[in-house]
């Protein structure tokens, strides 16, 4: 295999997933669109002069996909997700080398921690974050009070936060 291809393949294996996850959130949950953006990012990487990208391809991919997603939101006036989605504060702050690696690691741990939450907490949080429902909609769907939904989600996030802080990072995952 030619060296460029091997290089791109390694980058794909390493960063494809965190990129699609991240871009999906920026695009308000549109995973199909996120895939296109990420593919586009990689295609651009293939076109970019390698000497200019090599060594910081991770940061490059991250920036290209993020900017692309933000452009789409702007062009389509889809500002809702960026503005209102939780984590909108991240859009301007979450740059830096190792970002995708750190995210991939966090995603893996959060996926695992989600399974340890009490079922109703996990369900409420999933409805909120994966299905973008409001507290009111969640309370209707779960047949429980608004106050209870608020409690469930607060506790769920609080548990995830403490567990994440306590649990040390997996050594195997720490590489960029």
């Amino acid at each position: 295999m030619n060296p460029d291809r091997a290089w791109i393949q390694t980058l794909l294996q390493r960063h494809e997933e965190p990129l699609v996850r991240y871009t999906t959130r920026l695009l308000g949950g549109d995973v199909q669109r996120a895939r296109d953006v990420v593919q586009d990012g990689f295609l651009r990487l293939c076109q970019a002069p390698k000497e200019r990208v090599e060594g910081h391809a991770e940061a490059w991919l991250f920036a290209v996909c993020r900017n692309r997603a933000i452009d789409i939101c702007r062009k389509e006036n889809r500002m809702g997700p960026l503005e209102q989605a939780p984590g909108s504060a991240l859009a301007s702050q979450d740059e830096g080398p190792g970002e995708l690696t750190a995210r991939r690691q966090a995603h893996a741990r959060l996926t695992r921690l989600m399974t340890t939450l009490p079922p109703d907490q996990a369900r409420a949080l999933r409805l909120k974050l994966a299905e973008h429902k409001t507290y009111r909609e969640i309370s209707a769907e779960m047949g429980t009070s608004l106050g209870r939904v608020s409690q469930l989600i607060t506790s769920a996030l609080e548990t995830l936060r403490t567990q994440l802080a306590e649990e040390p990072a997996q050594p195997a995952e720490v590489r960029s």
Partner: protein
Amino acid sequence: MTPDLETLTAYALGELTLDERVKVGQAIAADPEARARVEQIQALAALTEEALVEAPTLSERQRAAILARAGSRPTRRRWLWVAGTGAAAAATLLVGIGFLTTYESAPRLPFIYSLDGDGSAPALQAQSAPREGGEDVRREQLQRQLSSRLDPPMDGDTLENLKALGYVDAGPIHGEVAGGTRGATLGHGDGYFWHVADPDGQAEGNADPTGTESYTHAPDSTFRAVTQAPLSTFAVDVDTASYANVRRYLEQGRLPPQDAVRVEELINAFDYAYPGPDTGEPFSASVEVAACPWTPAHRLARIGLQARRLDPSDLPPSNLVLLIDTSRSMQAQAKLPLLKTALLAMVDTLRPEDRVAIVTYASGTAVALPSTPGSDRGAVRSAIKHLAAAGSTNGGAGISLAYEQAREHFVEGGSNRVLLATDGDFNVGITDQAALVELVQRQARGGVYLTVLGLGTGNLKDSTLERIADQGDGQYAYLDSLEEAERVLVRERAGTLAVAAKDVKVQVEFNPAEIQAWRLIGYENRTLAARDFDDDAKDAGEIGVGHAVTALYELIPTGAAWAGADLRYQRALAPTAAAGSGEIMTIKLRAKDPQGGASRLQTFAVRDPGAGLGAGSDDLDLAAAAACFGMLLRGSPDRGEASWDLALTLAQRAAERDPGAEREELVHLIGTARGLSGGGVVAY
């Protein structure tokens, strides 16, 4: 009082009602710890949301397309772009094949087609007029060829084979797409594109391959005889968007589409060292004339107009109160969400000495952010992010509260201003417009000015807004797009708060005794009718404090060879006594004060000292390099002996004489374009 964790969580997740949100926002503004907590919750929620995405991987097909592209970098490779709508994958492919066939039998395809319809049948539409006749015939031919290939439809294996041969490549299109240079473009739309390799680079076409970027074609302005057209009139334009766009294309390794290159914007993308105007004058004019680098027998005249300067850091400290209509009608994307995005960008320009407060009005009024110094951008950002629309409107009460805030933090000698952003729907409260206007006037007398930002369409009460702004000694800007909002609130914030002049028009009159023909380089979209120059009712460009405008004229002096049109029925106009003055031209500039009123005329007479080739200043070299660069990218007919080497020489000389990053960048970009074009002129 710090809100409890549950409230902070609800706030972070955007769950509170407006009133609650305002309350929490205020509490957070005063409590860094609570704010850090909110940000932490948002970051965690973001990561969790990402972790919950299902099937977060590319498809096999997408991965294959990426790997197929890897290892075939675009140097010296040309693509023919064939695009279609996403749903029309099968038909799109057929267009690709059809095009290949067409290409083989008719290598020059001087028009652009788009694929229309749902993929059941490839309906073709010409996107632009053919260069030479017979478009209908060609279209029919192409359509026939395509139809004949519809049956049997192309299967996936064939596609893979074509890909393996390097003939076809595929990928998604969303706005800008990676790669490729120019070629004919088939298609349009938001979906998948197919590139078909064009190894000889002979196919023509000039459309952006992405389909979502379209550029209006404006033919290059050519030479005009002074006897027939003694006046050149245009509205000033200090936009430099085209330069940024050209740079983006080149950095992605492709040449920009011809119509994306607007030469005057390339010229105006650079800083020239023009002296400021004399006290009391709105503009200075710096004019330089020397031999034209690309046609040495011609003269190149550079006109530089400089508005009075004010260093951004010298702008007086501002005390801004954003008065934002958060009534239900502001919900539309083009209103509050657009405004929020632009305001967030504006926050980055705040200096520590600036202050911002936010007052919202809907059914009730609220201080969403008490007056906060620019050093605490986080608090401002957070307050803007949490603005939301609900309820009806009471504009009057909101204005009173906004003025109160502005008064409370009044900066002596500063820019004290209320920025009212609304769709103009004052449907509750003070409906008495006269009372409102009276309030605004009284406040302006006291040093607090009003800028009205109109948003959205349909509901917009334009006249109300304009009247309020006019009588309040303020400005009125209509934010029709995010770009405009960012221009007004961010890029030209200084210019918005301090405009040097408006309705700026330039008219140049040439002296037939010295000049036989002229050509304005660029400004194709900006020309005005000569009679509009003196018509104050005709709007033209505005110039913010410190902006400069540069225009280049290529002049053919009397005596130089020029095959101008001879008139059969009339003789040249009779020269006046001034024609013997030796002046080559007179520049007339009309501008209004930012506050409006009648326009003011400045005139500058120009002589040609006879500077030879290379005897101009570094600024002239720079402007000439930018013009040369633009003409080559556009394939301008009047480019004379312009070449990449000439452009490079001029740019290098300018960079050597006055080094700076932007000049170095121009050298670099010209070099890149030379490489991409294979050194030749870009043919269209």
